[in-house]
């Protein structure tokens, strides 16, 4: 039986992926998370340790793969603490993998690393520069983790490293795009209606399974069933946007965030203003990835109970 170490397993995405790998493909799952995992199946090992600690290193002894579920994202935590956790943590993970010759490393990054920008081409390829941190330092951790693992991909050539950059993941998960779409009257910017791409969380799980297959290495954008304007998504969900002129949206959101009325960092406003879409042709050609869920199903997935 093959063993896979999953970081951030206690999150909803982690659970969904772990379930799929364990029940359907028979992998032995070892979880790494600081958080507890209520309702954990008995045959899943959970190590509640800090990635940077010595104890974490031993977990990799007999591992066949690492699945790093990417950036730790807590908008309320101190920036220094997050930075250390994310960057030092990822560096350590890669060290452990090299030390124990773990043959497969998969990072779940995000298409957000390219950054929403007015001069973006409609579809960014994997070679595009990761500019998300230019306008918003808050995106720095996300970009740096991706860079760390990209460097590792070329440095540790004896291991197979895969970076997946999925578009907005939608489903019974608690990430920014799904949370946003669950707001009864989500704020939208007056005069802006960018095209967006969504992918169903189960399709992402499928892409991870495909990345774990032997022989796959490289960087892949993971794209869902198509492109739609934000307004069409809201209409499909029967939501009506609350129009805010963009010059006052930033200060308003900053205030709301400071007083705990909103969990969305100001940095994320640009995702409902500019295009940040990616080209998924490489994943479809080399990984054989095809989204199984259609556009409507993917949009409706935010309403699924967790």
């Amino acid at each position, binding site marked *: 039986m093959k063993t896979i170490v999953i970081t951030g397993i206690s999150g909803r995405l982690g659970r969904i992926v772990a379930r799929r790998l364990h029940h359907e493909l028979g992998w032995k799952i070892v979880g790494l998370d600081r958080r507890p995992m209520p309702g954990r199946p008995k045959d899943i090992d959970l190590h509640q340790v800090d990635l940077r600690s010595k104890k974490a290193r031993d977990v990799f002894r007999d591992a066949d793969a690492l699945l790093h579920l990417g950036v730790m994202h807590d908008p309320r935590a101190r920036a220094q603490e997050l930075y250390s956790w994310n960057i030092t943590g990822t560096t350590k993970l890669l060290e452990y993998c090299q030390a124990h010759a773990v043959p497969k490393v998969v990072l779940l990054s995000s298409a957000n690393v390219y950054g929403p920008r*007015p*001069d*973006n*081409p*409609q*579809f960014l*390829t994997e070679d595009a520069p990761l500019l998300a941190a230019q306008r918003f330092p808050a995106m720095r951790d996300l970009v740096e983790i991706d860079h760390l693992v990209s460097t590792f991909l070329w440095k540790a050539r004896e291991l197979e490293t895969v970076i997946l950059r999925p578009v907005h993941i939608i489903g019974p998960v608690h990430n920014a795009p799904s949370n946003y779409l669950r707001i009864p009257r989500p704020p939208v*910017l*007056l*005069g*802006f*209606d*960018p*095209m967006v791409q969504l992918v169903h969380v189960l399709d992402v799980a499928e892409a991870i399974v495909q990345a774990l297959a032997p022989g796959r290495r490289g960087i892949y954008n993971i794209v869902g*069933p*198509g*492109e*739609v*304007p934000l307004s*069409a998504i809201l209409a*499909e969900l029967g939501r009506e946007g609350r129009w805010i*002129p*963009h010059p006052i949206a930033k200060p308003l959101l900053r205030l709301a965030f400071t007083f705990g009325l909103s969990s969305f960092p100001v940095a994320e406003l640009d995702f409902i*203003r*500019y*295009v940040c879409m990616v080209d998924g042709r490489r994943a479809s050609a080399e990984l054989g990835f095809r989204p199984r869920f*259609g*556009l*409507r199903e993917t949009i409706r997935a935010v309403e699924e109970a967790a």
Partner: protein
Amino acid sequence: MGLLDRLKQLRRSVPDDDIGSRTQALVVHGNEFGFDPFGMSRAHLASVVTVARFVYRYYFRAQTFGIENLPSVGRVVIVANHSGQLPFDALVIGSACFLEPPQPRLVRAMVEFFVPTVPFASYLFARWGQITGTPENCRRLLEADEAVLVFPEGARGISKPFSKRYQLAEFGTGFMRLATEARAPILPIAVIGAEEQAPAINLKVIAKLMGIPSLPIVPYPPFIAAVPLPVKYRLHVGELMHFDGDPDDDDEVLAEKVKSVRHRIQSMIHMGLAGRKHIFW
């Protein structure tokens, strides 16, 4: 002939364009929500075409010659002269390709980078099929067999002063690289009329002081070119030009090909100017 007679004559000569069925006849690579990957939708397009048709048929009383040269399917790079302070030449070319041929075509113009930062323009241009002008976008559109409109004169062309009318500015070479790479033919169009729609002088000294590339001033209120004069537009559509060769050729090799397109448009402009009776009718 009095102005009133002219207006009556105009009313009689304008055909009843069936915008609804023309919009349906467009080839759109849309999804189940009706949007193509670039955000264009038929529903949004039909409403703007109603306005564009009015501008094309009545305001500018545009005449198009040689529209049969526009291929009804397949990739093509439309190249035209750019002028008149406001990009009405793009609107007129787009309307002509939509209204005149038996099979309507949607022209995808390459818009400036600041457009996505302007409220409403940001998404409306996309709904109407107009695309941010990056080389990647152009490449992708040509791969999808679309008709792409480029103005190789760029900002040098649109801001040219009245004294430089119908003299083509320097052409960029990017369009030729993209066209040869995609093996797309080039359709040259000479636009007559646009160059007089906003007769401007360029206040170079003040522009330099303000740190902007040019400051065109028109001799009537509000002195900046906000509304074009109702000149008569004449479009002369030339025959397709085919180029082959390596898209990675040196700039000199490409420059030769670009020159031949520029010469073709310049000679079409000369012929068009010689053939017209009046700026306004």
